[in-house]
């Protein structure tokens, strides 16, 4: 009896060819992007999205051309953080054009096309079984968007990943072996443990992990100008066996600015959080230069 591979073609579906074409389109669209950096954690609530937005702003201030891809379909925040919530993507001559922040950062976020407070609703003919197809559908949607967006030439595309160690690895796998990963943690054993799991999930993949950033590393007091501990100190806490790219304190002023689509580049340059994000951006640039 004939086997599957002895019958030429894929049964007439054309599915394999279509998927190959989408992958080709994505590669073509991303050919002019010098560095793709995925920013993940595994842990939710550690400030991945905010840091992604702030790093994009600082890199832009340093003269780089930057785009942000919000890969978190279920908790998109980059549209709000970038102040492009009400700016729709537009059809352009060379593909889909995405809105830009005040600083000129291109932002692709599902948050730009969802009503405020609305969850992403994917139509289904199989109610109650979304666990079997939902992730596949999300990746297909992401692929369709990436195959359509005309980014132009970019120095950096920062990808804001959804939480979950396995999701971190899945997205790294999806985006390809050339992308680099930065992990975000906070000074708690619980968060470090989850980030360690993400690191472990990434280990079998060829993607290079540039290092981690310790976010919420103290509280920047606007009154006295000092940085005080935000979490209890854990002298015996095990570290992560990847380079630390910097520590960024929590600053309530930045939290307020973020809600209005503004960034650290709108703050007093002498503010500690501005200096901290700038150091992290410089460290990422340096690590990328060393890697290339």
């Amino acid at each position: 009896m004939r086997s599957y591979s002895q019958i030429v073609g894929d049964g007439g579906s054309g599915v394999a060819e279509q998927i190959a074409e989408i992958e080709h389109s994505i590669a073509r669209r991303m050919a002019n992007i010098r560095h793709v950096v995925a920013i993940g954690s595994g842990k939710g609530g550690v400030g991945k999205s905010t840091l992604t937005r702030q790093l994009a702003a600082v890199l832009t201030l340093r003269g780089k051309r930057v785009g942000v891809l919000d890969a978190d379909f279920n908790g998109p925040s980059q549209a709000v953080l970038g102040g492009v919530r009400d700016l729709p993507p537009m059809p352009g001559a060379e593909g889909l054009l995405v809105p830009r922040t005040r600083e000129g950062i291109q932002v692709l976020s599902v948050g730009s096309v969802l009503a405020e407070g609305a969850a992403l609703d994917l139509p289904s003919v199989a109610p109650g079984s979304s666990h079997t197809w939902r992730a596949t559908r999300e990746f297909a949607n992401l692929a369709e968007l990436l195959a359509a967006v005309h980014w132009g030439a970019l120095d950096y595309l920062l990808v804001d990943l959804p939480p979950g160690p396995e999701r971190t690895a899945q997205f790294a796998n999806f985006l390809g072996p050339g992308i680099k990963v930065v992990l975000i943690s906070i000074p708690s054993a619980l968060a470090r443990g989850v980030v360690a799991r993400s690191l472990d999930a990434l280990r079998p993949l060829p993607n290079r992990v540039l290092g981690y950033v310790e976010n919420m590393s103290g509280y920047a007091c606007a009154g006295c100008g000092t940085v005080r501990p935000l979490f209890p100190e854990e002298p015996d806490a095990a570290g992560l066996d990847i380079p630390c790219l910097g520590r960024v304190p929590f600053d309530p002023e930045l939290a307020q600015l973020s809600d209005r689509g503004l960034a650290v580049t709108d703050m007093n340059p002498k503010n500690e959080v501005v200096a901290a994000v700038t150091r992290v951006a410089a460290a990422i640039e340096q690590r990328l230069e060393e890697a290339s």
Partner: protein
Amino acid sequence: MKFLCVPCDSPMTMRATEESEPGSLSVIYTCPECGYEMAMLTNPSETQFVRSLGVRIGPAVAAAIASPTNGVVSDGPVEQAAAGKCPFSAMIGGAATEVATDGPSWTPEALARLDAIPEMVRPMARAGIEMVARENGHQLIDEAVLSAARARFGM
């Protein structure tokens, strides 16, 4: 997915397909050698899972489904699969944008430009473009209005 007639060792060809009930397909295959027929009936989960791959087909492929001319079988040991196109994909369609009757009109070129962007972002893009058209008193959306909309949204 491919179907093989075991007695004939021959790839079966798709003869007909229909959405027999919401979320389920009936796909009938026939053996070009002996004429044996079988039907594959999908459950909603199977249908949805294949839909979720995000593949789509255009009118040409839809036509191929409507009038299958498949079952190309060569004389060699390696044969073409039963052809015809994916019925799951046919169900997805690749819905073209419908023009609202109460909004500005679209030129075919402008509508084609809109249809070329992912379906997921199309409604908001369309709403933005039509808003710009109304703001500027345009009844017909053409390339000039698209350009004005891009400028309006900072692109």
